[in-house]
């Protein structure tokens, strides 16, 4: 079946209805839509159940703060304490910088200002498996000279 205006003219494109009704034509298309809808419907069901599952989960396994996030940090000293407070959830910015920024904020603004998007700065800074050690050393060791 050709979509031609005149027999002499080469048609711009031809419609091949036979192939359309073969197994790999419309039936596959319909089956595909069916699978996509099935999968996403089941997903909707699961996601809808999530809040209820959470209620159950919270009952039997209360959410405790994660190790990584909740490791108690050494108490900040005297005067800087207030500045440090505002920085408490900075996540991992090297403390000195955090203190500096927080102090600057404390100077300039009237109400405490929460710095929320600084985590990225440190991801690169903390060494992988040794992070615990580095953090420890920083407080105990004298800075290596000559570097």
């Amino acid at each position, binding site marked *: 079946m050709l979509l031609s205006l005149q027999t002499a003219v080469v048609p711009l494109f031809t419609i091949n209805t036979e192939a*359309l009704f073969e197994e790999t034509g419309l039936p596959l298309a319909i089956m595909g839509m069916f*699978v996509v809808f099935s999968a996403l419907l089941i*997903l909707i069901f699961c996601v809808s159940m999530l809040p209820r599952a959470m209620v159950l989960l919270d009952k039997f396994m209360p*959410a405790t703060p994660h190790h*990584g*996030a909740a490791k108690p940090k050494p108490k900040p000293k005297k005067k800087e304490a207030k500045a440090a407070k505002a920085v408490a959830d900075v996540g991992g910015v090297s403390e000195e910088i955090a203190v500096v920024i927080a102090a600057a904020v404390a100077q300039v603004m009237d109400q405490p200002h929460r710095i929320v998007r600084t985590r*990225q700065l440190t991801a690169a800074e903390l060494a992988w498996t040794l992070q615990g050690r580095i953090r420890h050393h920083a407080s105990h060791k004298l800075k290596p000279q000559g570097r």
Partner: protein
Amino acid sequence: MILSSYFLDKLQQLLNTTAFPNLELGNTIMIIIGLIFVYLAIAKDYEPLLLVPIGFGIVVGNIPAVAGMPLSVYDEGSVMQYLYFGVSKGVYPPLIFLGIGAMTDFSTMLSNPKLILLGAAAQIGVFGTFAGAIALGFSPNEAGAIGIIGGADGPTAIFLSAKLAPELLGAIAVAAYSYMALVPVIQPPIMKLLTTKKERLIRMKTSRQVSTRERILFPIIAFLVCTLLAPGAIVLIGMLFFGNLLKECTVTERLAVTARTGMIDIVTILLGFCVGASTSAPYFLNYNSILIFGLGALAFSVATAGGLLFAKLMNLFLTEKINPLIGAAGVSAVPDAARVVQMVGQKEDPQNFLLMHAMAPNVAGVIGSAIAAGVLWSQLVK
């Protein structure tokens, strides 16, 4: 006399070392197309992270080859072929999905799960185009690869065409990315045509907070549901939710950060450049490419309409109506389609913030087209 003929000879020989003798009209056309891509990316800000690499890649891929030198992505042993390996074997797309997973926030989808259906409905663009391509005489494999353009998802399109119809990869990838970039141009008229002003004015309720635990559980559950039903999608879906788990699980932050910055950037640069460079005129400028671009436009329109109309259908049953505009975001094209929804909605009511709601069908569309790709691949691969 002899000297002058010697010099003429030399000059001829010199000219033969340049690219000019082999420069054909097709190359020139493609170079201009590449430059237009770069222009659109820079001046119009259309998906610049993809159009700049692809556009410059098109220019590079159409500097005519020198006989005997392995330069193009199709030449055995050329550097470009090694870099193209990640495209031709389908390795880059899953890595990009890893990064996308590590930067995607599924919260809005979790807080309003029924919107996921819009992402399913938009896949009519994939399967409708597939049927259209079959009808136009493409082989089933080729039709599958062309249909996935309707998924509006570059990596998925590249992945599936690498598996089903490598010879069409360049055209399909360029079509998919072009139309993704043109979403702000293609979608608004369809959106206005298929919705009433009243519908466009519907405001949606802000959605509930989603807890950390839910966000950690979601990628695992979603992965199991999707791949048990459509195991062909395992590589794309697996990487997507793996990346998302890295992001949400709170203890692998540094891996998630690298996945969504350095890693995805490197792969994006190489993928875009190689896809562009694969559009060498002799491979690209042919009747099939024109058909593919036509079908691609159809695919985006059908997908947009599918999402919109399904939203209207859902409204027949819902008491709390959804704004049908956000159905258009079901085509993926993250996040441009969602931005277009916001834009069109704000034109009617400047105080209507649809972007957040549109993100739900938007990311659901990514999952939907990955599943569609899995189904097509598993049914068509022999």
